[in-house]
């Protein structure tokens, strides 16, 4: 029997009562005061602060999950390398109780999160040549360590100084580092795709956007000349000089792609243009805009319909199978 995610959540909120070595850790909380959780196939994870550093704490969701990472954690612990971040199993770290009141202890994994920026942020801040060279260096280093990450993707890469460090070793194995070759190829393509302004946007990015957009709770990336921002009043958009283009009144909004963005208000989701005018009014449960196909799938009362780029309905609301 493994503890539930609810049990893990409660432990993260009461670390002094639930954890052993991590008794003074603090979970990174969301706006509702709950830990921000994520899960993979076999683990639930949450970011914590402990001993002045950021860590990723993971709880197994199946009885075989810890066993599957034991060998990897042990080997990483013995390596003397700065290409991988410390990753270890904390045996019996979490104390919990079964529904019948029986006390149990659960192993957790702890992974150090180095200071740095995400792959996505690095795409905006670093020249493509530098990123490609860093990918090459990482691939070479992992080959040298005989290490296969087996789940290399943007979310699991962190830009630290002048290099990429891979994160989340739940699927990693020693041996067959060539397993990561297709993933490295996909990452290179991602860098190249982003470096080609004609394929990403018709507005060239010639500056570093991150240092300009102060005064917001959150900022997205520059996309088609606009940056989605979150202010106290909601989500909106500013231009490259941080001037308000569309006031921050939405409950949620996405980046612009091909002149359209999904946005949500109190009444539902809709699609807006670059002036903030509604192309599809905000009365739907889900708006799923595909900038490649220039179509929009819209859900209302659980049924889907297709709209076109100009907001014209192309099909009747019907079963989900109507959606590709």
């Amino acid at each position: 029997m493994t503890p539930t995610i609810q049990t893990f959540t409660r432990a993260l909120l009461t670390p002094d009562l639930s954890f052993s070595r991590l008794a003074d850790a603090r979970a990174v909380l969301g706006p509702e005061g709950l830990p921000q959780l994520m899960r993979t196939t076999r683990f639930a994870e949450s970011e914590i602060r402990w001993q002045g550093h950021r860590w990723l704490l993971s709880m197994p969701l199946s009885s075989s999950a810890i066993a599957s990472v034991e060998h990897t954690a042990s080997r990483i612990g013995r390596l003397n390398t700065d290409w991988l971040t410390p990753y270890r199993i904390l045996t019996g770290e979490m104390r919990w109780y079964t529904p019948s009141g029986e006390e149990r202890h659960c192993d957790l994994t702890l992974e150090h999160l180095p200071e740095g920026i995400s792959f996505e942020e690095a795409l905006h801040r670093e020249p493509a040549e530098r990123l490609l060279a860093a990918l090459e260096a990482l691939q070479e280093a992992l080959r040298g360590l005989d290490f296969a990450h087996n789940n290399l993707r943007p979310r699991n890469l962190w830009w630290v100084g002048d290099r990429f460090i891979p994160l989340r070793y739940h699927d990693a194995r020693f041996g067959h580092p060539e397993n990561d070759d297709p993933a490295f190829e996909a990452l290179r393509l991602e860098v190249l795709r982003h470096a080609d302004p004609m394929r990403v946007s018709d507005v060239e990015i010639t500056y570093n956007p991150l240092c300009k957009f102060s005064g917001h709770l959150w900022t997205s990336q520059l996309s088609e000349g606009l940056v989605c921002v979150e202010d106290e009043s909601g989500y909106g958009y500013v231009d490259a000089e941080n001037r308000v283009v569309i006031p921050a009144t939405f409950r949620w909004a996405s980046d612009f792609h091909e002149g359209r963005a999904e946005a949500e208000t109190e009444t539902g989701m809709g699609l807006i243009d670059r002036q903030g005018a509604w192309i599809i009014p905000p009365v739907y449960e889900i708006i799923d805009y595909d900038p490649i196909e220039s179509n929009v799938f819209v859900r209302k009362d659980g049924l889907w319909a297709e709209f076109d780029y100009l907001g014209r309905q192309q099909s009747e609301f019907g079963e989900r199978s109507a959606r590709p």
Partner: protein
Amino acid sequence: MYTQSITRTHRTAFVLLIDGSGSMAEETLFRGKRMTKAEVVASITNGMLFELIERARRNDGVRDYYDIAVWTYSRNDEVYSLLPDGRQMISVTELAAREVPMRREIIECRMPDGSTALREIPAPAWVFPEAAGQTPMHQALDQAAELLEAWCRNPAHAESFPPTLFNITDGEATDCDEEELRSVSERIRSLRTCDGNVLLINIHIAPSATQQSVFFPAEEEADYPNRYAKLLYDCSSPMPEVFNEAIREAKGPGAMPPFRGMSYNASAEQLIAMLNIGSISVKTE
């Protein structure tokens, strides 16, 4: 049978029917505190909804793995949804996207030295306790049968792990006789996808903490002297093999399958175990 993993293309459904009759206002003991049964069931249901949402969460958001319905039956033959906007059934993605009221929950933690510590933590609350009127269980099951019939008929669900229906009650139906209850239960259990029949799990919770209970009984435990326990046994689904390991672990050493998806005089803790086993034992991608 019962081998399909839950994915976005092979979704499943969970339906909770909660007895909201007047007797649910009686008090019971839960985690060291005296609470009404309605409060206990609401708290446990909210915990289950939280678990279902978090189990569906990935780095790209909450994935559309299952539909969820939470209904109550009470008053003068009333059956209605407890979910936001009174929606009959809602996808886990939609449920996660809704704003949810947060309540403060006091949890009791046992310390290694045997003492206890109380902590107040935030907890989302989608449903709230209700307790008034009668127990129109037949009507609730009948409406749930219609809902699940439509769900199973949807071609998109043809190969899915079949829906699971949890019926949580502390008493007997007031709107039918035994044969009618058996009949509507049989109707539900006969609904199916290619992966198996709909699972009907009847959870009878105890009027007090001192009652002797049985949950997920094996065949040899089924010879009840109690008429109502026997009726609930007959109305409930045999549990498929995929749940055996979790049930054996919860019941303790010596438990031998096959098990039946029912309880009689279950404690709140057994209710949690049954909901957990019935909902999160199924492999999700």
